[in-house]
Every structure is written in structure tokens, then in C-alpha cells.
């Protein structure tokens, strides 16, 4: 079974950066947003690695990475991502802010997917992160699927196994640390990935050079998309989380244990 796998992946600020919200004329944003170092959204990154892994196992597969982000930032992130797995980039030049509307982002992504030359939608698998580290709503991928007319959708996916008859067994996260197991007849389908089961691939500079041949033209061709804010924001703020920590240095393990057990039993 061969697949055309489209991975939808945004970029997000490096998690170690301090984020400070600011209100602008068109809605909230992050202070110095364009200066913050960015990474590929972590769960979408897992989706990309899983897509490449699946494409490697099956014949005649192809992987596209569709990304909606400011072009200059996307170029920086792609310098690293390109060394991980083979893919063809489809870039959309627009805001990657977490305060933008999922529906507008989905519209831009779906339009870009439909316009991919040679894409066979009967073999299409749309991958992405089940939530982003920016909007964190778990909404965009479902909307992309709806716009593409795909009604076999899975979220919080940790594994996909292709059977000899072309059916998929898919594991989705559900409550209580368990997985729901589903059997799907095959593509087209939408899979929103959680962490999956693959480690991050090591850097491969040769692969990076190969990917870069198509990356730069794709970035130059990136269409501009205006993505509106997600409603009218009354306020955005980083809540004060500072606690007055009591540091206990001189108690024996037994005395600490007594204190902890009493606290647990309160």
C-alpha cells in the first residue's frame, strides 16, 4: 500500500524561552515574537517522524510538510528539521501565533494541501500534532480534515500498524493512561499524533542538503495568508505563580516522611 502523507506542522517558541503576552491592534501576541528562537511544534514533529517512518516501510510513498508560519522564521527552523527526515515543504507565509483562529489556519492549510501537484487524495493521510504548543486547542487538524472531506479521524495517536490487507490499526490516547484501538479500512484519514513511539532521528547532513534543494524554492513560493485572531480578547496574562517556598534542610528522612504522610492524610 502506498501513501501520500501530508504533515501539517507549525512552529512555536522554544519552550525554554520566557513568554510575555502583549496586546496589539489586531489582538494579542508575544513580546518580541519574531526575535524568539523557534522550533517545530513538538507533537507535529513526532507526526513528521512517524510519517517518514511509515513512508520508509511502504513502497511508493511521499511525505509533504505543510507549514503556516512567518517565512523567515520557518526558514530558520527548516535548517534543523531538514536534516532529520526526507520531505517536500509547502510553505504558507502567515502568523504562527497561538492567539489566531484555528478555523482560519485550517482554511489556509486545506487550500495548500488541495493545491499540491500530483497529490492523490484517495491515498492521502493527513498527519499533524493532536495539539500544538501554541494554541493548544486540538482543533486545526479536525477542521482541515472536514475541509478535505475526510471523516475517518483519530486524535492522540501513539501508533499505527498497517495490516497485510491495507487496513490500519490505530492506537489513540483516552482517559486513564489507556489506548483506544480502532481498525480503519485505509486512506484517506486524519491522524493527530501524540508522542508516538519513535525517538527523534539523528541529524543527517547529506539528507539536509537534499531537502534544502526543494526547501528554498518552496519558501520563495510561499503564499501569504491572513489569519485572524480567535475572537475578541479581553485580556491575556501570565499569572503570578510565585509561591513562598518553605525550604526544609535539617530534618532526618524519617521526620520528613512523617510530615509528608501527615500531609497526604489531611
Amino acid at each position, binding site marked *: 500500500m502506498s501513501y501520500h502523507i501530508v504533515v501539517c506542522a507549525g512552529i*512555536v*517558541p522554544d*519552550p525554554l524561552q520566557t*513568554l510575555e503576552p502583549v496586546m496589539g491592534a489586531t489582538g*494579542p501576541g508575544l513580546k518580541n515574537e519574531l526575535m524568539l528562537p523557534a522550533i517545530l511544534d513538538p507533537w507535529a514533529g513526532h507526526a513528521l517522524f512517524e510519517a517518514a517512518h511509515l513512508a520508509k516501510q511502504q513502497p511508493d510513498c511521499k511525505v509533504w510538510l505543510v507549514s503556516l508560519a512567518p517565512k523567515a522564521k520557518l526558514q530558520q527552523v527548516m535548517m534543523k528539521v531538514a536534516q532529520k527526515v526526507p520531505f517536500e515543504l509547502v510553505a504558507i507565509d502567515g502568523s504562527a501565533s*497561538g*492567539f489566531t483562529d*484555528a*478555523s482560519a489556519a485550517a482554511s489556509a492549510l486545506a487550500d495548500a494541501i488541495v493545491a499540491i501537484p500530483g497529490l492523490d487524495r484517495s491515498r492521502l493521510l493527513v498527519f499533524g500534532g493532536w495539539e500544538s504548543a*501554541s494554541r493548544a*486547542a*486540538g*482543533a486545526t487538524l*479536525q*477542521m482541515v480534515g*472536514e*475541509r478535505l472531506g475526510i*471523516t*475517518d*479521524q483519530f*486524535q492522540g495517536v501513539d501508533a499505527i500498524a498497517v495490516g497485510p490487507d491495507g487496513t490500519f*490499526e490505530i492506537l489513540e*490516547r483516552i*482517559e*486513564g*493512561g*489507556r*489506548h*483506544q*484501538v*480502532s*481498525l480503519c479500512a*485505509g486512506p484517506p484519514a486524519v491522524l493527530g499524533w501524540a*508522542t508516538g*513511539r519513535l*525517538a527523534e532521528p539523528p541529524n543527517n547532513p547529506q539528507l539536509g542538503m537534499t531537502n534544502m534543494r526543494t526547501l528554498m524554492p518552496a519558501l520563495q513560493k510561499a503564499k501569504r495568508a491572513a489569519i485572524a485572531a*480567535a*475572537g*475578541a*480578547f479581553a485580556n*491575556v*496574562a*501570565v*499569572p503570578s*505563580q*510565585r*509561591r*513562598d*517556598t*518553605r*525550604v*526544609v534542610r535539617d*530534618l532526618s*528522612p524519617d521526620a*520528613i*516522611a512523617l*510530615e*509528608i*504522610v501527615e500531609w*497526604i492524610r489531611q
Partner: protein
Amino acid sequence: MDPAVSILSLAHLEPDGSLGKPALEALRVARQIADSLGAPLVAGLVGADVEAAARQIGSCGAARVLAVSGTEFAQSRYVSDAAAAEAICRAASALVVVAAGTSRWMRVLAGVAERLGGRVDTHVTRVGVVNGSVSVARWYYRQRIEGTVSRAERPWIIAVEPGAHEAWRGAAASVPVEPVPVSLPALRTRVTGVRSPASGEQTIRPDAELLLVAGAGWTKKQPDLRTHVQEAEGLILGFLHATQASLGGSKSLVDLSGEGQDVLPFMTHLNQIGQTGASPRHRKGLATCCHGEEPHVVGWRFIAERRAINLNPNCGWAQGKTDVLYVADAFEVMKKVNQRLA
């Protein structure tokens, strides 16, 4: 308020045919919005047989109880759940739809909003109505920034975060149920079951009072310059058995497990809390051997009372984030804790 439009509480049934706590929390939120706006409340139910669930919420004051039922709707599956939710929303002429942010609804609600030409907000932690305008609070950038937003587009689907609101309480009562017809396409997906962790050890308990967070320090070399992973496993599981706490892990610890190293066998990515993991809701949290931002800042966002055991008295991530920081060896302390709990 136009009486032809409504506030809809949308709920799916649990496997036993009842409505779960998250569904009752969403119902209470919908009831409050309806009361504030002077709009009729409609209850929508999806499941195999909705009679018991309708009776369970019979005294909630819903003007109508709409239901999509049948064996096809027993399974948690996109195509059937989305069709059911869409049909109920249309039948209710819902302006605002409130549903619980369960894994089942989170799979479909955004797609349903797209079908209806509406909008969706998920992981909502607060809902307010001021001067006839509904607003919601939710977190952005993985629990780092909180925003309050209102929307003009309708219908507006609001998925409330489980555990963030009080559950509706009321007496059971018989109510008429209006069936809503749904025609499904040929089903291409079949749910074949639920799989528990391979180790057979249930370590994630969303309803637990206490969260134990284990950091990578449990797998590092100890003062005798050797690792004590088996001992760590015994201490952690012993504590979980004694307290029925839920277990969370730092990213570094679960990544070690994913890379196939000989570490804590019951620790998977599903246990991960923090930036790329969960931000669970528990009344108390105890962090052990954690040395990073994620467990203490992002993963602890919704933990009310926090304590940590850490060998480093200057750990910047723990100080200011926990109520009490015990500077001690977690192996020694947890051994004594388990003895006292036995």
C-alpha cells in the same frame, strides 16, 4: 433572547449508559449560561441507549432532551460522533454548545464547529456571562498564558476542561426524549477495544487526590556510584499502591524509557507532564528527583498543594513553585514514607 434558539449541553454516555462527571460539569456550565442569558436549556445525549442518562438529568430544567441513539453510537468514533453532534446542534438551534473536554468529544467538536460554520474553544477553565455576553478563559502556549475571549460567531462550541467546574447535582426524573435521526455513511472505522499499559500496572488515575511526579534522578547514579532502578521501581510502585496516587513523569525520564534503556518499565509517554505532556488536575502533588522547568511550572499548573523532595536546596525550578521543598535523598525519604503508609 429568541426562544427558538437555545443553549445546548451536549453529552455522550459512558460505557455503562450513565453520564460521567465531566458531562455533569458541562451541564452545570450550560445551565448557568442559559439562566444568565434567559435562554432555554436543551440537553443532547449520544449513546447506545439514552433512557437511563435522560432520567439521570431529568430535573436539570432542560426545555428539551434530544438524543441520537443506537448501537452505532455506542463507539467513540469520529464519523458517527460528529454526525450525531451535528444533528443535535442543528435540531436544538443552539447558539452556544457546552460539552465536556473528554477524549471522545475532543476528537470531534472542532470538526462539528466547522460543519456548522461556527467556532470552537477547547480546554476552557472558566465561563462567564457579563451584560449578556459570554466569555471563556483558557490557556495558551501550554498553560503559560491565560486569556479571556468572547466570540461573535455562532454556534460557539465550548469544551470545558474536566475537573475545572462543579458537577450538576439533582434528582433523577422521567423526561420525554426526542429522537434525532442521523443517517451515517458506510462505516470504515471500527473500535476493537481498549488497551491498558503493557506492564499491566495502572499508574494514571485522573481522579486521584495526589499526583506523584518522578524525575530522571531516580535512574541516576547514587552515592555508591551505581544506579538503583529496581529499588526506585519498588519505592514508586509501593507508594502508588499505598496512596492510590496518580503517577506523572518528567520528559527526561519518559524519554529514557522510550529509548529502550533499562529504566522504570511502567513509565511511558502517557505519564509525561509538562510542556509536551499533560497538566493534570489533582489537589496535591509531590515531586521527587525533578530538576527542570516542566514538572514544576507547566505540569503543576493545576496542582493546588505542592511539595518536592530534591537534593539541591537551590533548585530554581522548585523554589517559588512548591509550598515545601525538602532537601533530602528521595530514596531514603520514600522508603520511610512507604514504611509509615504500610
